[in-house]
């Protein structure tokens, strides 16, 4: 595995691992101590910055917006939203799919890249996983809230009951319940298990008594013995193995929600892979959206280097192209099916009343990502951040186009109608964004946002390679 020694700024391990020259995955000159100090300081010693308070305050406000919207929704009914007949699903399911998509990057980065031994994942996996959890939490709200009778949501679960009733397993919505809850459980476990050594570090380093107790309980008695590490590595790898297929399965099942229906525009075999690609695309876009400002705010340029940004941009470009292929295929199938209904969906998307949404989607998801072919744009945090935001908007629009334009004009022209989200739809959406950032702010304040022990490992490996 050894190759010729490069200048010190470019650790050979990283270069070798990626097979391409570029910036390092860890800035040079870091030791175990410096890594641990720098990351744990964010939680333990640096204190709460004014910026954090502002961000936390804003997100807390939107959490309250969400609470108001949800309370009014449950008290009044789905009618406060814009949903109607024929558009039975609107922003509710749209946001569900959008959040679930965002929640894909975490597992992909943690599990799949771990299994593929991509060490550059180390510095971003922790908060990508956290982001996944929070995104899935936001996503999980919507299928509950969109129910006409939320108070009986548990009828979706197969549990023995006196009514003698059982879920209807032919429905993709039941598969959804399992897919999403499994994903949430495994992601949570994976994230928590990965946190244990770092929680122990925090326990050991914290000055506050409360911190010692809380981190101590959460660290579950971690002492860092060889036996612990042996068990830990085995468990972590196993969990990664379990989590990896979920990257594909969750959004496949979400794709089934649409693909197994007979609605023209939904009834497409391409949906599962196209949804997965879209999910990874949007997930990486969201990681970039968050990583770039965090990196600047907390001075983490040493850990989240240009290399990370570039790699994530490449993943976005690749999955973006897959998504674009999906759009092309949708149009092609519409034409090739020789089916009036499918053809009309294509026509209606392109020139119907929601055409602006469709063309904005093409702009956001097909045209703008092509800029990522240019390396200068890939490594420039600002341009990359803008493109990531555009991709997030594009993926939101994609779900809008899929859900609303398919439903609003389906088979019988007599039932065609328009769908307009109401202030409560938007309130719930910005409220869920608020919840997401609320959780994220708590996370970066109280937990190490970069995996300390894995960074130490990276330092070790970098040194080893260097010394070797």
């Amino acid at each position, binding site marked *: 595995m050894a190759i010729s020694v490069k200048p010190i700024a470019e650790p050979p391990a990283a270069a070798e691992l990626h097979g391409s020259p570029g910036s390092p995955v860890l800035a040079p000159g870091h030791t175990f101590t410096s890594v641990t100090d720098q990351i744990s300081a964010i939680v333990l010693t640096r204190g709460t910055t004014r910026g954090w308070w502002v961000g936390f305050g804003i997100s807390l406000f939107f959490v309250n917006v969400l609470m108001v919207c949800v309370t009014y929704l449950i008290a*009044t*009914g*789905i*009618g*406060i939203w*814009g*949903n*109607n*007949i*024929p*558009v*039975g*699903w609107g922003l509710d399911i749209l946001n569900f799919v959008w959040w679930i998509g965002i929640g894909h990057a975490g597992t992909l980065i943690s599990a799949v890249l771990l299994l593929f031994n991509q060490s550059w994942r180390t510095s971003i996996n922790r908060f990508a996983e956290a982001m996944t959890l929070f995104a899935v939490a936001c996503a999980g709200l919507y299928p509950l809230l*969109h*129910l*006409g*009778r939320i108070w*009986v*949501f548990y*009828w*979706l679960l197969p549990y023995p009951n006196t009514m003698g*009733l*059982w*879920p*209807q397993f*032919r*429905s*993709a*919505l*039941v598969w959804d*319940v399992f897919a999403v809850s499994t994903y949430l459980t495994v992601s949570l476990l994976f994230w928590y298990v990965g946190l244990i050594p770092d929680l122990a570090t925090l326990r050991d380093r914290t000055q506050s008594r409360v911190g010692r107790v809380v981190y101590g309980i959460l660290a579950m008695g971690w002492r860092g013995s060889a036996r612990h590490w042996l068990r830990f590595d085995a468990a972590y790898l196993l969990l990664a193995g379990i989590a990896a297929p979920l990257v594909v399965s969750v959004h496949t099942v979400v794709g089934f929600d649409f693909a*197994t*229906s*007979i*609605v023209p525009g939904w009834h497409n075999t391409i949906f599962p892979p196209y949804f997965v690609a879209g999910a990874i695309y949007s997930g990486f876009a969201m990681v970039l959206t968050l990583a770039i400002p965090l990196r600047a705010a907390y001075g983490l340029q040493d850990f989240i280097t240009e290399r990370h940004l570039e790699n994530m941009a490449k993943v976005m470009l690749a999955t973006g192209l897959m998504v674009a292929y999906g759009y092309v295929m949708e149009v092609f199938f519409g034409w090739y099916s020789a089916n*009036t*209904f499918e053809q*009309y969906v294509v026509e209606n998307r392109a020139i119907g009343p929601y055409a602006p949404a469709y063309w904005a989607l093409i702009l956001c998801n097909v045209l703008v990502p092509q800029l990522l072919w240019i390396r200068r744009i890939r490594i420039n945090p600002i341009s990359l951040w803008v493109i990531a935001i555009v991709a997030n908007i594009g993926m939101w629009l994609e779900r809008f186009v899929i859900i609303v334009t398919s*439903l609003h*004009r*389906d*088979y*019988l*022209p*007599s*039932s*065609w*109608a328009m769908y307009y989200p109401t202030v409560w739809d938007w309130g719930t959406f910005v409220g869920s964004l608020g919840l997401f950032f609320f959780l994220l702010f708590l996370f970066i304040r109280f937990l190490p946002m970069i995996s300390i022990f894995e960074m130490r490992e990276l330092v070790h490996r970098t040194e080893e390679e260097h010394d070797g």
Partner: protein
Amino acid sequence: MSCPNKSPTLVQLAGAPRELPQFWRSLEELAGDPDFAARLAQEFPRHASVWDESVADRRRFLQLMGASLALAGAQGCSSPPPEAIMPYVRQPEGMTPGVPLHFATAMPRSDGAIGVVATSHMGRPTKVEGNSLHPASLGATDAMAQASVLTLYDPDRSQTVARLGVIATWGDLLGAIRGALASAPKGTGVHILSPPSTSPTLARQRAALIAKYPQAKWHSYEPAGRDAARSAAIAALGEDVQPVYRFEAADVVLAIDADFLCAGGGAVRYAHDFMSRRGVESEGAPNRLYAIESAYTPTGAAADHRLRLRPSGMEAFARSLASRIGVPGVDEATPTDGAYAKWLSAVASDLQAHRGRSIVVPGSHLPASVQSLVHAINDALGNVGQTVTFIAPPAGETVDGASALRELTDALNADAVNLLLILDANPVYDAPVALQFGTALRQARLAVHYGLYQDETAELCPWHIPATHYLESWSDARAYDGTAAIVQPLIAPLYEGKTVHEVLSALIDPAPMSSYDLVRATWQEAFGDDFDMRWHAALRDGVIADSQPATITPTLQPSAASGLAPSEADANSDTFELILAPDPSIGDGRCANNGWLQELPKPLTKLTWENAVLMAPADAQRLGIETDDVVRLECNGQSVTAPACIMPGHAEGCVTCYLGYGRTRAGRIGTGLGFNAYMFRPANGGYVARGAKIAKTGKRSELARTQKHHEFEGRNIIHQATVAQFAADPQSVLPAAAHHPLPSLLPDVPYDGFAWGMAIDLSKCMGCNACVIACQAENNIPIVGKEQVVLSREMHWLRLDLYYAGRPEDPEAIHQPMLCQHCEKAPCEVVCPVAATTHSDEGLNEMTYNRCIGTRYCSNNCPYKVRRFNFLQYTDEETPVLKLLRNPEVTVRSRGVMEKCTYCVQRINHARIDAKKSAVESGAPPVIADGSLETACQQACPSEAIVFGDVNDPKSRVAKLKADPRNYGVLSELGTQPRTSYLVRLRNPNPALG
């Protein structure tokens, strides 16, 4: 106050505590239990005992009211009326709880009553059906009759006698009236205003009143009356006669601005007779209908050929036609364009080829000159006595309503009215504005209003008497053909209502009689010695045998056609002719507070909850107006701003505004909707105002239309063919693919017992909406209000889809009843995560409301979009009186659940249980005879377009229709295998018109 009728009792009670005992006595009547008051006192002794005027504060009142209404609910409901009424169909030994009873009665209307059979659940009428023995019904009904039960339970109905809006007593009122009469012994200055009535008892009382008070004046006025038809009859036929048509005998029908299929007292019967000559099972050769009209109507939609013409062109057309037919003394008007001339000559020759077997029907609102010409044409065609017969008007001696109202107004303005009794009329709202009736009314020394609501007129009358609903009244009424029927009550009056007979009796008779005695007295003479037997028969059957008046054969006056001067055409092309027509749903405004009718999509616009300025696409394009644009309509010095609605097929050069809207005191439902088009009405009561100007305001207001897209985009939804094509090759009327069933991956489920299915003949459907309201009444379907309709959330389980084919200026309109198709391979069932919608072993797609959690996936996956979701709590579960309305056999749905057509599963279960019971007795397998089980929509349909039954029984009508080569399933290429199928719409165009 925006809702003046909201809780009138509450307002009145607070103002007049002294009258409270009156109120409680009426509730006691509602509860139907003499012990009620005693038990109330026991139950709430503290409240009851301290209840006097000094403590009648609002809080105390509400406490007591809430508790008492709960008690009233627990008590069950009102009792049947004390007088003996005769059960129809079944006569149980006593009332069996849970088993509904059926009573024949009649719904009186000024243009002819319709006989109905009312269903009573434990003393509560919940549904009316047509009476198959009654000539105006033959078992079917129309939307207004179906909706009449809602009016009965309307919480905004007036409940007590009121003086200046405050509760008063009947005794006080009688004192006031007698005082006024005493000062006018001969009846000087006594005026009575009422709409024409077909009630023989009322006619008798009217004669008695005039006999007792010779100076009294009776004014007969109806806003949408038949003044013009009356003067035409007098001019052309020399006497006041009314035509009765026999459409079943007519091969060719020409309707001149006449919506005979959906409007008028005989419409249900006429639709039945006319449509009996259409469709596969038609008796005799298929008929042909020509319609010439300004606004599109259901009759125009049913026509084989339709010519659009502005109102001023009607006379020229009639004149030209008369001349072609050979009516002497008529000169043909010069035809203006080729298509028109071609149309005219085709119609003329077709009519002449069917002499004695054709009918020309004029709209009863058309100018007398046109109607006189039509009398002459029918006479010349030899139709009189064959397809057109005449009877004396069922409403008795009629007068010109417009001049009657003018006379009354003059008398009022001359301060010559001592006592004015307004019976069931609302002239303050619906009189032509030029008369200033409201101002004149204030001149009356004593004005008494009698009506179901405290409406606009009641507001200006010092005294108000609540009327009884027909389901609470004893009365009698004649149908369009003069056949009489007894109106018998299903329920004792819910409030302190009086029948019109009781009110008049108080004026006439020394000792006021009950309406029961009054009605019996009327028929005493006619029935003779055999009274009891015939009375019972009349009650049981819902018609009085042999009561049809003799046919009159009038002689055509020589001057009928020739004496008329040609009317001048409107030369000014900048202005529009403004057509003022009764609303297709709420009529002349009387039904404005009926939520079912308000939310009923109007047949050719699918507009609900308001009226609009209906205009032709070409005119709209010229003025740059689109649907939902607010326009300013100016005419006769009056103006209004209202949204425009483009109506394909509307004649150019004219616009239509429906009457009945713009009510200011209709009730919580009807107040403040739309605009009052009566303001444009010419003082002579005409239907057309000339010189209307329309200008865009630049504002927009979204109309509550239930359907906005009217093209079927060439999809497998509607199929049409001509009779000739069908005769030549029956298979050719459908695309080849429709004849081959598709393979399915899903296993076929065998249905061994019953397999319910429905076939709908599109040739017979004209879009009259009777089925929609019948479904709503049967299945406890809530209304949602205008805002929710705008959001596409209406709840109708059965809707009538309207498609236009052809050019937008002159399209064909096709109605398609769309309800749950009960797909054998139902897409909704597989996507429900909780198995709330499943298939029954009889092939029904069933909805388990209790299981539904409201994901709405089933609706997304329904290609027919017939599923309806309770986005909000639409059903009013609070208003106590509305609880009485509900059909106890159908679950009332709450918010958050999906619902849809069940094929009236409650009726199926009823029939199956009965069949099983008799099967146990006889030992044979259970049989439900074909035709004995009807869905609500099928039962209401006047044209028998909907056929329901067991498709497993090859002899059933539905099975035969499904075997017909015209049978197809909508969107069947999806593999849904719908149980509801449609029959290709067959038309019978004149080959000469290509």
